[in-house]
């Protein structure tokens, strides 16, 4: 240490506790709002194609990430899709071990060129393989709140 004075006694090395008290309320945005409402009210997955790039974004976007064009069209996609990758998560948000490991997957809905991240259920890790057909399991209509968690999980079809 380039300091002239140091801490020499272990008891002097102490910490000061604090936090970032951040509570946030996020809007889903122009495109997200419409996507989540359609899913909630009509059980329908929507995607937004970019005619220039050929991408079909699911969830849909207001703009194309690649060429920045405005995406005006909306098309129906899914609800089934193919598994692009998966993992089994053993630690929680607090960094502690989970009592029950959680399967997570990347699912490319039929008609989309992008993949959604969601929870997987109804399968063991050994049953899963890339390319496997998956289908969403939705919350009962009355309990939906216009959030991505209106989809409970995806399961093998």
């Amino acid at each position: 240490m380039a300091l002239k004075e140091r801490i020499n006694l272990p008891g002097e090395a102490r910490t000061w506790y604090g936090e970032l008290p951040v509570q946030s309320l996020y809007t889903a945005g122009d495109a997200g709002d419409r996507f989540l409402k359609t899913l909630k009210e009509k059980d329908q997955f929507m995607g937004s194609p970019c005619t220039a790039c050929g991408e079909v974004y699911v969830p849909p976007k207001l703009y194309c990430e690649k060429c920045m064009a405005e995406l005006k069209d909306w098309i129906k996609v899914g609800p089934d899709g193919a598994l692009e990758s998966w993992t089994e998560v053993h630690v929680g948000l607090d960094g502690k071990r989970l009592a029950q490991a959680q399967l997570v997957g990347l699912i490319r809905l039929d008609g989309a060129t992008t993949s959604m991240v969601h929870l997987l259920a109804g399968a063991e890790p050994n049953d899963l393989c890339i390319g496997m057909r998956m289908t969403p399991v939705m919350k009962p209509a009355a309990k939906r709140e216009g959030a991505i968690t209106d989809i409970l999980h995806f399961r093998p079809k």
Partner: protein
Amino acid sequence: MAKPKAQSPKSEVQSPKSAPAAPPYHPIAHGLSDDDFKHGKVCTTRWTADARYAWDRGVAIGRYLDGLKQGKLLGVRCAKCARIMIPPRAFCEWCFKPVDGWVELEDTGVVNTFSLCYVTWDVKRVKEPQVPAVIEIDGASRGMGIMHLLGGVDPKKVFCGMKVKAVWKPAAEREGAITDILYWKPL
């Protein structure tokens, strides 16, 4: 899609019709009202960050806090620029060298500037104002202040240049924190 009706941007751009439009020409963004949130007209998600820290106090601030616990205000001295500084730091920011030792300062000072604040940090209105101030500490070089609160004084009677003295927590309750000084009162 049912977009919220509030603030249709295009209509605002176009009025009044007689005057030529000024750039930016079509400044879009859809403003939302309280109602849109309250009545769930927009999809939202909430999140409370779990972001907690235990910052190492280090040499300079560690000893400053230990001094506060003993009811002392400690400063540091730079021999090169002949400044006595508070809050303490391990190095002089102007000379870029380690400081040359500790100085016990007075627990009195002069109000450099102050405010009468009717709003708490989390934006709640209060009747009696808090009186934050920058207090230049006696014994430190001129202009060396710290931020703290004034108390025991009619807010209307606070003025810049007022002499003040620290009101300490009882020794047993001090924990080595800036709040070991409850507030500063007129001397």
